[in-house]
């Protein structure tokens, strides 16, 4: 099988690898690079467990080829915190009990961060609509929505400080 050389910046570090053209971004992240925080829930672009950021925008990484990420900047859940300091969305998910089995959590958080970057003050309806691409089988979503609201409040407060 022929391979293609790509360089992707993942969580701030340039990673150059020879990959098969058909390799999915999620496989590149999980298997080639070992960033297993990005989960595979449905293998078919439906569940959102695999959401990462590509150039700051949320993307289902099972719906993108690794070669399409060549030259771009990818952030996974492992790259969201600033060292030991959690991102406000991470803090809120923990504090608001917005997780049970945790399998949807990384994708959910990456989606929520993108939402709050685009719209710092989403109302509840906007949060629900945005999160429709992320399935959670455990929580019933209530705490997840609360967490996104709480994170929005925290991020606005930090911006104003």
């Amino acid at each position, binding site marked *: 099988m022929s391979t293609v050389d790509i360089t992707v910046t993942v969580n701030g570090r340039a990673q150059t690898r020879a990959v098969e053209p058909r390799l999915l971004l999620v496989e590149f992240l*999980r298997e080639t690079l*070992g*960033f*297993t*925080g*990005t*989960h*595979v*829930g*449905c*293998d*078919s672009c*439906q*569940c959102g*467990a695999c959401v990462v950021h590509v150039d700051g925008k949320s993307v289902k990484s099972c719906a993108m080829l690794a070669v399409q990420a060549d030259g771009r900047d990818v952030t*996974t*859940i*492992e790259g*969201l*915190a600033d060292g030991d300091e*959690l991102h406000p969305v*991470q*803090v809120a*998910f*923990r*504090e608001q*009990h917005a*997780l*049970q*089995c*945790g*399998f*949807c*959590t*990384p994708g959910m*958080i990456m989606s929520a961060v993108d939402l709050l970057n685009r719209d710092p003050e989403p109302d*509840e309806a906007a*949060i*629900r*609509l945005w*999160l*429709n691409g*992320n*399935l*959670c*089988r*455990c*929580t*019933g*979503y*209530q*705490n*997840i*929505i*609360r967490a996104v*609201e709480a994170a929005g409040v925290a991020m606005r407060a930090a911006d104003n400080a």
Partner: protein
Amino acid sequence: MRAERELELRKAGDDASDASRVDGAVGTATPHDSAVLHVNGRATYTDDIPEPRGLLHAAFGVSTEAHARIRGMDLSRVEAAPGVVAVITASDVPGPNNYGAVIADDPILAEDEVVYAGQPVFAVAATTVDAARRAARLADIDYEPLEAILDPETALERESFVLPSTTLARGDADMAIANAPHRLTGTARVGGQDQFYLEGQISIAIPREGGDLFLYSSTQHPGEIQHSVAKALGLAQKDVTVECRRMGGAFGGKESQPALIACTAAILAQRTGRPVKLRLDRDADMIITGKRHDFVSHYEVGFDDTGRILGIRYNHASRCGASADLSGAVNDRAMFHSDNAYFLEHVAIDSHRCKTHTVSNTAFRGFGGPQGMFACEQVVDDIARHLGRDPLDVRRVNFYGTDSRNVTPYGQTIEDNIIAEIVDQLEASTDYRDRRREIEAWNAKSPVLKRGIALTPVKFGISFTATHLNQAGALVNVYTDGTVQLNHGGTEMGQGLFVKVAQVVAETLQIDLSRIRCTASDTSKVPNASATAASAGSDLNGMAARNAAEKIKRRLTGFAAQHYGCDEHEVRFDNNEVHVGGETLSFAELVHAAYMARVSLSAQGFYKTPKIDYDKTTLTGRPFYYFAYGAACTEVVIDTLTGENRMTRVDILHDCGRSLNPAVDLGQVEGGFIQGAGWLTTEELWWNPRGDLKTHAPATYKIPCASDLPPDFRVTLLESSENREDTIYKSKAVGEPPLMLGLSVFHAIRDAVAACSADPKHAPELEAPATPEHVLDAVMTARGDTRV
């Protein structure tokens, strides 16, 4: 969001006898023990474990026929495919080719007959996932198709059963029905449900030395995996070790089903001498593994003018699929919950466990209870509509009493009945009566949209019905720095079991939660553990862990008294310190001193549920230690032109006893309710006439998403409740019961459909799930229209 919650109210301290409490004590809303790992993406699921050297990946080759004889099989192209290292069929299974949980009717790989489309026939191990999955499609199998039975009603007609039919009866149902002032017959139909845990089935088998084997498995029952794998491989149980740190959801789907995955990986590992990982992708997972049973329940009921049931007869037929699996116990539980919260004096419940040529159904949160209650609630609703009474009034006249009318059809006296109080409270807090009146007036003026409301109760029996399963073990190790590793037979699937049990140990030893590490469920630490199921996880493992912690505490107390020369009753553990006579030392100091004096700092704990006693042959006795209660009031709106429906407001009041962790419990109630609502509204399993499941991915099978949540969702845990039985800190199990709160959604939709009929006594012919299609059918029937 107008979520009114009482978390804040239930923070620690209200029941503390002394002012100081350890961090993460029992009763506090402590975050999940892995919360930080989860939000960082650093919690390790089975698929995230660093791959061992030489790892192979496996895939199943599956049947394309629902029922056929295998005339011949040519796997040469599979074997020759790139990357393939091994291919196995039934004859390659070293031990008995079976992983049946209860009876041996579940072949790991099909022998000469296939009994459902999607059944594994052979398995491949290859160097990559892709190579294995591609190779698995290259088989040439010659099938001789046989007649397939694809639904429970046909199975019932043909008397095709996986287990003998059973009857539970008390009094004289037929006579009571015949003599009743009113009589009704009807049929309740409810679909199955896929567990749809976000993490699919997965197992990694690693050969070690001397023929022994280590497995990682995403399973609710590591012990069962150990036993099945040992059997299939012809090994002894001592030769197999199984570990599971966490699952990405399970909901019953990882109780018996993971054995198939684990056995296959293990056989391939043993054969190749290399580690083997088998992960099903979503489609394979949904096609190959079992789901909730769908039920068709006919009923005949006699009642008086108030709607009180005088006599009732049920005839349940469930789709068990191709084998027995756990269907016996699932259907028993359906029978035990055909009363829901109602006293049925003269009752006969027939249960048929239908064999169909579809995937073998299995455990799913509620384990048959929801289906029994579904039928029961329809009976009560039909009675109310027949009499022109508010369904809530009919529900109430049928409630179990506290001193009389309090014996279940299976002969258990209910000693903890609080359903009337819960329903009274919820009726008042939801303004149920006013809203019903307002909805009626609104509906009268609204030709297209119709609203509906329903308030339904839940009573759910807690314990495994198989008495012997109600036992648990735990292992507590205290290290010389005063920190603790905790292990027990329970498994973590997201339900918060690990944090709850750790809170119990923190409370018992009076040390902060941060000093305790929960370790992976492991058959070599706590042997012979039951499945984490039946909502009994914290009841059983909490008690076992407390027992272990208390043993150590007693040893430390004895040592301290002797060492410091005081009475044992002068030794007091309190908030990370130990007071010994007049002295105070830290927990770690005492532990270290005890170690120096050669005191054992490790203990196994054990627990078995008291009082339960149940005779399987007569289906009578006390199968349940106690009952959990709750009620939900749901309002919906339906579009009568499209059948679309949505919840507009939901109020829930649920009883968790004295909650070990109100945040975790609240999450269980919310998540359980939404899952129940999904079961009864959007989640539809559909097989084509060939017996292929066509709803095998989220593109075609719809679980609730964020927008399906009611905009107004108010969930409250019952205040000042405590378990009347002596459970762990007087808490109650919470895993399964809230799922059945979802019945209120179905009945609210039914109420809205009823509003479409000119006949005030019309009982809607609505089947579950109440998909737009089913709602539209029911609306048209209610209006007397025929479908074009």
